[in-house]
């Protein structure tokens, strides 16, 4: 792609991992503070958008881990799987379970909602990111 902006390209190289880290952070803290899988996924999509503006749609496509379709499918699978343990505990599908891990100074709560939220994250990232890339790819000129 011609007409790239060097500053943007360099900035994107630094910003992309930062934004991805932020996305994961937003996902993880979501249960207690503003954030969650949906917003985290959107932040990741924005990171992809940045890459695509700076380095082209192909680079953006490569920046989606596992490829957009696979990521989306895995996301739906994750979210659905997170509802299964409840069935073994004789509760309705998608009843979330928690485990309390005492860590001495505090307690760490780990539960199936995180798995569910990660699924949401993956679907939003995969589907919207993939969509974004394929729309932006229209603007891409054919490789010579």
């Amino acid at each position, binding site marked *: 792609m011609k007409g790239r902006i060097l500053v943007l390209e360099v900035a994107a190289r630094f910003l992309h991992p930062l934004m991805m880290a932020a996305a994961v952070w*937003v996902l993880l803290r*979501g*249960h*207690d*503070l*503003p*954030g*969650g*899988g*949906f*917003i985290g996924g*959107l*932040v990741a*999509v*924005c990171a992809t*958008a940045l890459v695509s*503006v700076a380095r082209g749609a192909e680079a953006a496509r490569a920046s989606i881990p596992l490829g*957009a*379709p696979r990521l*989306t*499918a895995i*996301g*739906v699978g994750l*979210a*659905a799987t997170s*509802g299964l343990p409840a069935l073994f505990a004789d509760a309705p*599908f*998608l009843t*979330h379970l*928690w485990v309390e891990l005492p860590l001495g100074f505090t307690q760490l*709560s780990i*539960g199936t*909602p995180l798995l*569910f*939220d990660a*699924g*949401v994250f993956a*679907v*939003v990232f*995969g*589907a*919207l990111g*993939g*969509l*974004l890339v*394929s*729309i*932006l*790819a*229209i*603007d891409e000129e*054919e490789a010579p």
Partner: protein
Amino acid sequence: MLAIAPFALFVWASRAFLRYEAPFELRFPWVPWLGVEVGFHVDALALFFLLLITGVGTCVFVYAAGYLGEDPKRRRLFSWLVVFMAAMIGAVAADDLFVLYTFWELTSLASFMLVSYHHESETARRSARQAMLVTFGGGFVLLLGFLVLAGLAGTSSIQGVIAAAPRFAGEPAARFAMFCLFVGAFTKSAQIPFHFWLPDAMAAPTPVSAYLHSATMVKLGVYLLARIEHVFADDWLFGPTLIVVGGTTSAWAMVKTLRERDLKRILAWATVSALGTMMMLIGLPGAEGAMALVAFVLAHALYKAPLFFVAGNVDHCTGTRDIGQLAALARVMPWTAAAALAAALSMGGFPLSFGHFAKELIHIAKRDGDLYTIIGYGSIPVSAITVAVAAIAAVRIFWHRGDGSIPSEMHEAPFSMRIPPLALASLGVLLGLSPHVVDPMLQAAAKCITPDAHLVEIDETRELLGLVPVYALGVIVFASWDRLHEVVAKVKLPSFLLAKTHLEKSQETAVHLASIVTRTIQHGRLRGYAALLFSTMLAALALTLAATLEDGRTLVAHARLGEIDGARIAVLGACVLLVVSAIAMTVLRDTFVLLLVSGLMGLGVALSFLFAGAPDLALTQFIVEVALVVVIASVLLRVRRLGIEHPPTPASPSRLALSLGLGAAVALAIVAASGTGTASTALAEYFGAHSLPDAHGRNVVNVLLVDFRALDTLGEITVLSLAFFATARVFAAFRREEAGR
């Protein structure tokens, strides 16, 4: 190799039958709040059908392996055959009406897939569609009947319904349910006026015809009515309806037989006729009917399936099924001829065959009621033509000399195609020699239909004498088949009498209507779509507002001036940003600037969310806005580069009116919503209180998304992913097209 599975099931079912004492049940909840459970109730009747399904299934699998040879699509046929067999087993074993219905429809689906096996052929596709429309249409009516029945009985368990039957007998709703069940059973079992799909379904490969369309699937309707007979036995319409419909079908199908030249279609019409006889047997009063029914079902499976196999062999080895072109095949195909002969003996009801045994039982059953003597006489021609059809399939094409126009390329069928018909047909003859072997089985099955079914003493000489006219007439029909065929083929019925024409016409009308609707609604003009959307919105809002006003509520908001703090000022600032950019939107003309300003508006909304105490919403809004602007900008760039940009159109009065109206309505709605104070805070309070203790989360929005409303979220992300996969295909195609240019 695949035949092992049905064979193992067959062995299991036989064992179960030999040790049969009481029905065994298996149930676990499915939809508990509706009282629907996956219940299976395997009694002697179900076991009897299971034996048929798995026994004939074994032969069909063996035969299909030889018939298909190295056909590249054979994998598909086998997988659908397995699906079908599983569905059939489920349908006859089911104790819940809705479980039965599910399997019932599954068999229709399998039938559709199997009839359309040769999907390159237009006829096969059309036949498959027709069979599907008829059986699924009947299936819907059946479901309606099941719903009414379950409602009346208060349970959807079939045994429960039968037990509760005396409570609702005679109610009009029960009669309605009965007729719904009739429609379902008649479509499945090809009774008049739904009979036409079965002969057309002969476009399927022969193993499929033998299995689905003669031995098992088409008997589901018979099975259902036999199973449920008790519920409606007191309704005086039950028996006569079945006798009239069954009798008419069995007679009419025989007339249609005479019109055919294709061996398979001849057999198919004979099947329709046999199904009619079965329906009639259910309708007959008295205990002998049940016994005759199960015997006939068994006999029919034992002779019709091998005859279809024979037809398949003939087709396979000579390349034609036209009986006019087939003659003297016995020399080349001795094995097939032997199988055909054995099966035909049973079909014609000749002494010493199981068909004879069944036929005698039928005669006794018909004789039982004085009123029904006339049916006995009426069935003589039907039986006679059956004899003639049997003779055609066994004698004419194998031993008749013909006029010398025999296909030159002929050979005997491979081994795997010889064994199944021989096995089934010789079983039919063996059982005829010693019917007492299966007597206990038949009796047990018949007892499930009518508890007082018992063994019937057969007066041999009298029965034989009664059959003499049948054989005599049969021989006459056989001898003059070609002449009869010419006469019958000339008769043309007015097309409005044929249900088939109505079905086809309604299909055409449906397609025509759909194309009109599509053209009107999907005209492809974006502006039209937008106008439609916005006017609908306007109308909905206006109606709601009008309703609010009628309630006597005031639209004036109670403006309260609270203390002025930082957050309020910030929200006010965001609103100013919104207003300014909204005004700018109406003045600006350049699309790019418009896009940026609309992004600004989104930003304003996000800001107001943020300061009004909804940080999650604000974050989402920010990000969506950014992504949207990037995407639209790149599309706009592309459009501009291609030079296909539309010049902005001048404002038209109607669009101006629409915009103003919508704006006013939305503003009024907001005022009304905030002014009436109807918004309940109960939900917010509930979630606020329960979020941390119940779901371990302080962020109520997130807890709502992933826990309290997790199923909704799961649905949403599924939709999102499906939308992505669908659009990805479209974009991929678009790119390919671009690359191709």
